[in-house]
């Protein structure tokens, strides 16, 4: 495991345990997510990747029967602390889901949503909608049809719209849960490139089933197996000399 004192983590977990009723899904997770880097989470289906991702913006709070112990520190603030405002956490830590899930509203209103909720002024919203769409590389494709339904976009465009919608909140961290698994190769490539561009501005944590994708875009990789963090290392290091035999087996495609 990487020495924690080496760099300061942007967000990190401390002995994080999570249960869905009696199902112990995450076991003693300690992981640092470094500032302005792309961290990939890989592991076989059902090992707890999505669940872990959802701990970073407290989306698991919504699931009845979910119990969490341990800490998730955004810098030095535990986001599970009782005096923390959840909506504030979710504004700082944006999320993009596996299937594109735009609202049944116009392209503009999708991106403006978070800003509207926070009561921003119209002029400011206009400006940020444009900026966010540009940052998500969607602006040129939609600038003439901002008021058309978001459903008129292709799947890949919808996913970039969801990224733009998250970026409009000016998040520090972006969580992506298999954002390309429902997309064609071209759209996937575009989103991968976009991640590399975005890491100049935000810290990115991405769950992926695709080992090659983790290799292409991530600086660090976390391998999760049966709810445990088996290995966390710079991606290059892990992909060339995995320390754990289970990581080695997974990377060579033995299971998963």
């Amino acid at each position, binding site marked *: 495991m990487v020495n924690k004192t080496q760099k300061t983590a942007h967000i990190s977990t401390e002995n994080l345990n999570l249960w869905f009723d009696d199902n112990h899904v995450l076991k003693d997770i300690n992981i640092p997510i470094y500032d302005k880097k792309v961290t990939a989470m890989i592991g076989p289906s059902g090992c707890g990747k999505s669940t872990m991702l959802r701990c970073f913006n407290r989306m698991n709070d*919504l699931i009845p029967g979910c119990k969490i112990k341990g800490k998730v520190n955004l810098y030095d603030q535990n986001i599970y602390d009782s005096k923390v405002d959840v909506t504030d956490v*979710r504004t700082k830590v944006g999320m993009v889901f596996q299937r594109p*899930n735009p609202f049944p*509203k116009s392209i503009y209103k999708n991106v403006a*949503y*978070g800003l*509207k*909720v926070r009561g921003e002024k119209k002029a400011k919203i206009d400006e940020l909608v444009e900026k966010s769409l540009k940052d998500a590389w969607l602006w040129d494709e939609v600038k003439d049809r901002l008021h058309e339904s978001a459903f008129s976009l292709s799947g890949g465009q919808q996913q970039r719209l969801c990224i733009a919608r*998250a970026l409009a909140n000016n998040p520090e961290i972006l969580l992506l849960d298999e954002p390309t698994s429902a997309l064609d190769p071209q759209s996937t490539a575009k989103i991968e490139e976009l991640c590399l561009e975005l890491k100049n501005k935000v810290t990115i944590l991405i769950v992926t089933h695709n080992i090659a994708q983790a290799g292409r875009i991530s600086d660090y990789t976390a391998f999760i197996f049966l709810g445990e963090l088996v290995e966390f290392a710079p991606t290059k290091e892990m992909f060339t000399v995995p320390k754990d035999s289970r990581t080695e087996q997974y990377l060579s495609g033995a299971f998963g």
Partner: protein
Amino acid sequence: MDFKEKIFQSITYIASICTIVFLFGIILSLFFEGLPVLNFTSIKDFLFSKDWYPTMFPPKFGILSLIAGSFVVTLGALVISIPLGLGAAIYISEIANKRVKEILKPLIELLAGIPSVVYGLFGMAFLSPFLIKVFQVPIGLNAFNASIILGIMVVPIISSMSEDALSTVPNSLREASLALGANKWETIMKVVLPAAKSGVISSIILGFGRAIGETMVVLMVAGGAAQIPDSIFDPVRPMPATVAAEMGETAIGTPHFHALFGIAIILFIITFISILIIEFVVMRRKK
């Protein structure tokens, strides 16, 4: 094809034909008996005169007061039932946990199962004296009373249909909204309700149709005065109540008889239009 299967198919086919025959039979007899009213009054006087004196000589068949009575109690009912029904739907679909949901849903459906005459009795025996006491009005059987009772009757229609519409909104939209920093209330108001809009609107129109066609309650509690009300506490005589009250004392084939059928045509047209609107709303959503 198998013989049994053929029989089964024929039976279901005949059943479906029967319903269509009934429908057109009713519509035909309605117009057959109703249109002759125009032999005794012009369509303009029928719809826009407020003088309903069917037994005077010469009789007057203006139904504006009756239309007004119907709309006053129906709109009053919607003012009461929309917030209550929608509120209940939101609570059941978005807020209540599973156990509370399992108790509340059948209870509200029970409300829908109570015969309307029971509602009417409640309005006469309890609500009427209550209104007289609280609002210091001379009569407790009036438009306000009918609005309240009809409103309670319409609540389960709006709540159960709206709840269905809310429940079909995919959870991924709620998650998207919450993940953008919206709280639960904002998520419901800005994402879930708009996404369920067509179902909610349909439920309100269906409730409207139920209220405007309801006969027993308005017969019992609306007061029965054929006048355009000045206040919500005036007694009124909605269209269905008029037909139900007067048909028994009218000889078949008289002008009064045809006028009552004429009222029924108006009711039918209003309900028909509301169903068309629902179809249109639902169709547009599917597209």
